Structures are given as structure tokens and as C-alpha cells.
């Protein structure tokens, strides 16, 4: 049931970032809103259940995106694995870590995109740098809030499930 909720949330985020965000001009280059969800799932959900979910969400993003097919799937999968691996060594609930996790996740995804686009030189261009900075700043400002909100939802859900079971 909770995975269905996360799937719905992922769909909502996809719709928001493909429809509403482009209309808000002052946001400029905004980061991928799915990244906080992927990071959250990787920190809180087992691989065997989390990976299929983010692959489905990535698949939908790939369907809607004009880039190389599978790019989002792979980006999300690697983000999931890397952050999942990291959480075994660091405390995933630290606020500062959350802020930087989203920012780093955004940069990693962008590197994937640029490399896949076939031009490694563009990775070091001014546009790429501006894009990285803009997205990272937005990720740091809003990403942590999204992760905190997701954690709150998760705890509410857990309490509700426990009450239901008892």
C-alpha cells in the first residue's frame, strides 16, 4: 500500500515538474524533483522493493523525456544504489547530510545526462556550470524539506499501520 502511495507521489512529482515548474520562470533551471524521492526510498526501503518502484518511475520519465531511453531509469537506479550504500556508513537522517545528498544526487544525474548526450566537453562548459550551480542551490533549498516531509509521511504511515495491526 505504501509503495502505491509512493508511486502516486512520484507521478504527481512528474506531472508537477513537467507542467508547473516550466511556467515558473524565476526558478530557472530547476532540479529533478524525483531525486529526493529516490534518495528517501534508498535510505528507508529495501532494495528488492525500492528498485522496482524507482525503475517504474524512471521508465515513465524516460517515456516523457526526449533523451536516451533508460537514462532516468539508470540514473535513479545508480542514485538509489550509491545512497543506499552510503547509508550503511553514515547517518541518513542528518539534516545537513540530507541537504547535500539531494544536491550531490542532482549533480550526479546531470553528469549522467551530459555524458550520455555524447559531449564530454560540454561537461566543463559555462552553461553546464551554471546549470549545476542553479540546480544544486534549488536542491539544497527545497530538497531537504521534501525529504523531511517524506519522513514525516512515512512515520505517520507507520503509526497508522501499527494502530491498525493492534
Amino acid at each position, binding site marked *: 500500500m505504501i509503495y502505491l502511495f509512493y508511486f502516486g507521489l512520484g507521478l504527481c512529482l512528474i506531472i508537477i515538474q513537467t507542467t508547473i515548474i516550466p511556467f515558473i520562470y524565476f526558478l530557472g533551471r530547476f532540479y529533478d524533483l524525483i531525486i529526493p524521492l529516490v534518495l528517501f526510498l534508498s535510505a528507508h526501503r529495501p532494495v528488492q522493493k525500492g528498485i522496482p518502484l524507482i525503475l517504474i518511475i524512471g521508465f515513465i520519465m524516460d517515456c516523457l523525456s526526449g533523451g536516451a531511453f533508460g537514462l532516468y531509469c539508470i540514473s535513479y537506479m545508480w542514485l538509489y544504489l550509491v545512497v543506499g550504500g552510503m547509508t550503511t556508513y553514515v547517518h541518513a537522517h542528518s539534516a545537513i547530510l540530507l541537504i547535500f545528498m539531494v544536491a550531490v544526487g542532482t549533480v550526479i544525474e546531470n553528469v549522467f545526462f551530459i555524458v550520455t548526450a*555524447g559531449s564530454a566537453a560540454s561537461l566543463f562548459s559555462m552553461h553546464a556550470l551554471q546549470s549545476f550551480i542553479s540546480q544544486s542551490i534549488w536542491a539544497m533549498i527545497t530538497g531537504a524539506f521534501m525529504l523531511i516531509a517524506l519522513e514525516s509521511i512515512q512515520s505517520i504511515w507507520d503509526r497508522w499501520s501499527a494502530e491498525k495491526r493492534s
Partner: protein
Amino acid sequence: MFSKRMVTIVGVLILIVLTIMLLTITAQHRSHPNILTRLAINCVSPFQELVSSSIRTCQQIWKNYFSLVAVAYENERLRSALNKAYELNNRCLETQRSNERLRALLEFKETNKAFQLVAAEVIGRDPSYWAKTMMIDKGEADGIQKGFPVVVHRGIVGQIIEMTGHFSKVLLIIDQNSAVDSLLQRTRVRGIIKGDSTRSFFFEYVLRKGSVKIGDMVISSGLDGVYPKGLRVGTVSEILRSNSGIFQEIKVTPYVDFEKLEEVFVLFKPPHPAIQQ
């Protein structure tokens, strides 16, 4: 046989290779959308369309609202500008008409150099229907005295009946109590002009034998001791000759439009010392 660490490393390496292969293939060959892709697009796109159209509607409303506000401001500004233009135009027209009147008065003054004239502005009128008087802005301080005739370039207006330091009251010749000794310019037939209404007055005491025609000009005779000789009064508009009586009944239309008087001249009968200086 293999340690867990070894398996992880190999797994990661395989994943990297698979990633590179997959991305290389998909980046170069964009395959046609399969059923799953179509399904995903068909599921998500209606929501995208809904949200996008809602945003566009909101944007349109917002934009229209702002453009309406801008139009309202512009409308207000243009109205204000139009009112100012109207006011300016009106002032120009007033100046032009005033200029025309003053030119006519000046011309009258030039052609009547024999008289001492003082220009005055009409500042008030008698509201009563029965009394035909008006106030002018010149009085004793300007040398005006009772009985001084008041004229305009078109003809006789009336005479001063009261004055204060700077203002005077003028009895118009259309008042029932006013009388002007006059004569017809063409035949020199004498009579008395008596006030009747704003539109006409009576030329009375004209003998039946006197030759009068409609359109004859009536001028002041100068015998009443008030108005100088030769000032225009009006034109004969109607003649009634009854079988009995020794006088004719003649109606005269004044030259002066008493409703539109704004500036007048006061004639100094005996030249005032102040004016002489």
C-alpha cells in the same frame, strides 16, 4: 567459493558495463514506442494536459486582469487629458470670442472719438423679469455719474441710475421705465423709444403722417439730454396704424442683444476732469 565482497564488486562492474551498453545503444537508436511506453504516456499525459491547461487558464486570467488594470489606468489618464483639452479648447474659444467683442468695441471707440468712453464689464443682471437692469464694474471712482449713457458698438444699452465707488447699476432701454428720444434715420420722424421686453420696444408718439417703413433704422435724437445724437437704437419691425388716433404704433427690434452683453462703454456726457487729464 567467492567472498561477498568479490560478488559485490563483480555485480557493480556488471551493472556499469550494462549501463554503458544500454545508454550507448539507446542514445544512438531511438526505438519506436512499445506498448509499455504508450501506456505510460497515455496514463500520464492526460494529467499533464489537465494541469497545463489549468495553468494556462490561470495565466490568461492573470494576464487579462493586469492588462485590464493597465487599461483602466490608461483610461483614467486619457480622460483626465481629454478634460484638460476640453478646458483648454473652451478657454481658447472664450478668448477668441472675447477678442472679437473687444475688437468691435475698439472699433466703436475709434469711430466715436468725439466721446469720452470708459470700458466696463457686466458683472451682474437683475434676476427679476420686470426690472431690466445690470451691474457693471465701474463706479464713481472711475468718474461715472448718474445719467451717463451706456452703449456698445451695436447701439444704446441704457443709462447709469445708481453707482457706488467701483460699481454702477445700468437701466437698460428695454426696461418699462426707460425712454429714449429718437428719430428715424431715413425720414427724421421723431418719437420716443419705450421699453417693452427683451426682444423689442415701442417707438411711440410718432405722428400718423410720418413716413415709416419696416426696416428703417431708429437712432437717438440727442434731445433727451441723456444719449448723444446719432446712436443706433434698433430697426422698425412692425407698424400698426389704427383708424383712430393721431399716432402710429411702431415696434422696434433693438440692435443690441441684451441677453449676451458682457462688455459695454460708458459715455461721459460732460467730459470728466479725470478723463481729460
